[in-house]
């Protein structure tokens, strides 16, 4: 049954992807990409990967759609006709797909308990999590402690994205244009009462859910990345409804900058602290006398750092786009 459902969803994914490629209207393409992400999130859920599903839904379907829409408000809605015939590109894509397909002939069957991925490191993570970290969600244990250094790297990637956007189209960038008043980003949807009312009702629940995902990540799917994206979605939604300045008055862009950098510093600061206490970088065990308590403390703090940076960066990127007018 699950296999049938998964195949059905994957077929829908392919159709949606073709739709994105074929769509001449960029607005349509963005919407289809949101649908694609939502379908993928459902597939991940069926494959028993709820953490990945939540991320895909929050980031792929949620935030990236909103950011692409704000980018779209700066450019034309229709794709340029003509250009290069994408025959060669299509051929390359097809060949690559065929090669990946060929590779799958030897791969262990889906869900095989004897597959190498389940027999080696991953098999040890379950008892290690129970004995040495003592939290129910193994995924959180892997991301936050066993491979916490990777997660710090990913947080820095997110921060780097914000640095790039600020560098290219931020307030200090050359040829910065301010949006003319009357621009959608400036005024929001003030004249669309139903949207405003329904949207505003949703915001407190999104924020509450963000906090839940943030602090419940040790027990259920979620964590800083998803929570940060959700919090950002709430603020950006407010900005879309009431205009950019209303969103800026909730959290000022200068504060956002501090959040973006501060979260990464908080995460890295935990690592420096553990070094000073005589441990390795990000070795939470030394934070407290009881190693399990110490792991909990470390994970709590670094997840907070992740959430703060992700929320700060995403809202900053929204502001950077919203503050630019149509050329």
């Amino acid at each position, binding site marked *: 049954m699950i296999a049938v459902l998964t195949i059905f969803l994957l077929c829908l994914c392919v159709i949606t992807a073709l739709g994105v490629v074929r769509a001449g209207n960029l607005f349509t393409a963005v919407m289809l990409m949101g649908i694609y992400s939502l379908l993928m999130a459902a597939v991940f859920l069926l494959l028993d990967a709820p953490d990945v599903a939540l991320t895909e839904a929050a980031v792929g379907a949620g935030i990236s759609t909103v950011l692409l829409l704000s980018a779209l408000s700066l450019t034309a809605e229709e794709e340029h006709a003509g250009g290069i015939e994408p025959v060669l590109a299509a051929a390359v894509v097809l060949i690559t797909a065929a*090669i*990946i397909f*060929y*590779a*799958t*002939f*030897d*791969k*262990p069957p889906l869900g095989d308990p004897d*597959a*190498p*991925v*389940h*027999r*080696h*490191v*991953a098999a040890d*993570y379950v008892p*290690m999590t129970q004995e040495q970290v003592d939290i129910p969600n193994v995924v959180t244990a892997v991301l936050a*402690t*066993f*491979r*916490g*250094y*990777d997660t710090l*790297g*990913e947080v*820095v*990637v997110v*921060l*780097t994205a914000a*640095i*790039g956007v600020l*560098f*290219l189209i*931020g307030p*200090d*960038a*050359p040829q910065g244009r301010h949006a003319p008043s009357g621009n959608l980003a400036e005024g929001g949807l003030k004249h669309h009462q139903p949207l405003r009312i329904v949207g505003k009702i949703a915001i407190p629940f999104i924020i509450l859910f963000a906090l839940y995902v943030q602090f419940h990540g040790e027990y259920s799917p979620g964590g800083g990345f998803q929570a940060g994206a959700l919090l950002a979605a709430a603020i950006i939604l407010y900005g879309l409804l009431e205009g950019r300045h209303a969103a800026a008055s909730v959290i000022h862009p200068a504060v956002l*900058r*501090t959040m*973006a*950098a*501060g979260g*990464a*510093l908080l995460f*890295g*600061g935990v*690592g*420096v602290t553990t*070094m*000073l206490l*005589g*441990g*390795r*970088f*990000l*070795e*939470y*065990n030394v934070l407290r006398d009881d190693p399990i308590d110490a792991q909990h403390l470390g994970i709590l703090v670094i997840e907070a750092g992740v959430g703060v940076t992700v929320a700060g960066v995403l809202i900053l990127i929204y502001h950077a786009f919203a503050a630019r007018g149509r050329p």
Partner: protein
Amino acid sequence: MNLVPHLPALQVVLPLLVAPILVLLRDARLCWLAALATSVTGLCIAIAITGQVLDGETLRYAMGGWAEPHGIGLRVDELSTVLLLVVNGASTLALLGGRASLLEQVGEPRQNLLFAAWLLAVAGLSGILVSADAFNIFVFMEISSLASYILIAGGPSRRALPAVFKYLIAGTVGATFYLIGVGMVFMMTGTLNISDMELRLAEVGDTNVIIVAAGFITIGLALKAAVFPLHAWMPNAYAFSPHIVTAFIAACSTKVALYVLLRMDFFVFQKNLVNHEWQFAFVLMPLAAFGILFGSIAAVFEQNIKRALAFSSLAQIGYILLGASLITVAGFNAAVLHLFNHALAKGALFLAVAGIGMRFAHLRLDEVRGAGRRMPWTLTAFAVAGLSLVGIPGTAGFVSKWALILAVLDRGGLGVALLVLIIVSSLLAVVYVGRIVEALWFGEPAGKDQAVREAPPMMLVATWIAVAANLWFGLDASLPGELAGRAAEDFLRHLP
């Protein structure tokens, strides 16, 4: 607290955590000072690590206190050390000389973001070099790539944006291919740790999945390393980025990608792909040969100095790859030596070009004619570094080219053909370096260039330190020679 065991971690963590602080600072001068201080400290750490590695240690560090393969390990050996010196050295020299040039080309308000991105690039590249984990390498590849795109996009010309967009697409495809390959290897081995991968691949080395994974990893990294014919993003990315950024990026960015390529292909896959041992050598060797030839010829016909040097880099990457694809100890030794020596030569050349770029708006050969008469120090530096690029005895370039020639001659008939190739491309290098030097020294000045004067003192100091390094390591190659020799012995242990 004893810092010594933490050195491999500090090499990455220090720039990684100073960068967010720079985002919050506003003062351009303070940001430059902080970036320079961090970079100098990074170079000191790299030198300290080199000392330890020369004592015969392979440095290891367990991130988070979790032992490999469950946790992420850091591992620094001779091969990584060579490039740690290159990355941190290039960053330090470029920052030392580059403040005025960066202020002029990028503008004052964005200096904090620029230097934050700079340190992130340093942290990303260093993070790749010290990592013992294939996925961790991907994470730091993302950091260094994103940061490099930002740095290149800072170029004053609008054409920097399409150039960087092309690089972004190529780089993303490359990184994604690498990730697909690593994912496939993970599927078949259950591990992401490189040494563990090497062991566990032995059982599954003949499966389709691993063969395809090796292909994806090789192509992805070749794209990032600008191996011919996947170099299309490189010339414009080098040409339109701020001059100082070019000096930094050209010296180390493609080489770090090449490092990962060598690490994965020759240390992990080579002995495990039974009946496919030929695939790296026989795929990479012709690419290297074509790259050497194409890059040298394109450089000869190029009018823009920076683009000419970018094409020359394509040829030099070919030399490095050629050495490795011989699959002999001598060949690998030459490849590692050339990684180091080419970074010295190209870094010095681009620093000199940055000096010229401060006095001329366009770096086309017909516009900079006769510049040498007004800025003799910069142009002498360019000429000496050019000699190193060509491979004249007494310079660093000669050491590695000679090692490469000896290595190819071991290969009999094929070796003679390759020798001819190296000689032809060296002669072409004489031509393309020669015509730039000729235009700069002997060309008639275009007239109204009274304003042209010598480059600022800091720039000259940085350029000449780089030139001096070319001469020093040309006369006494014991440090890179020792490191490369040991890296080659290590390479031998990973062969079937």
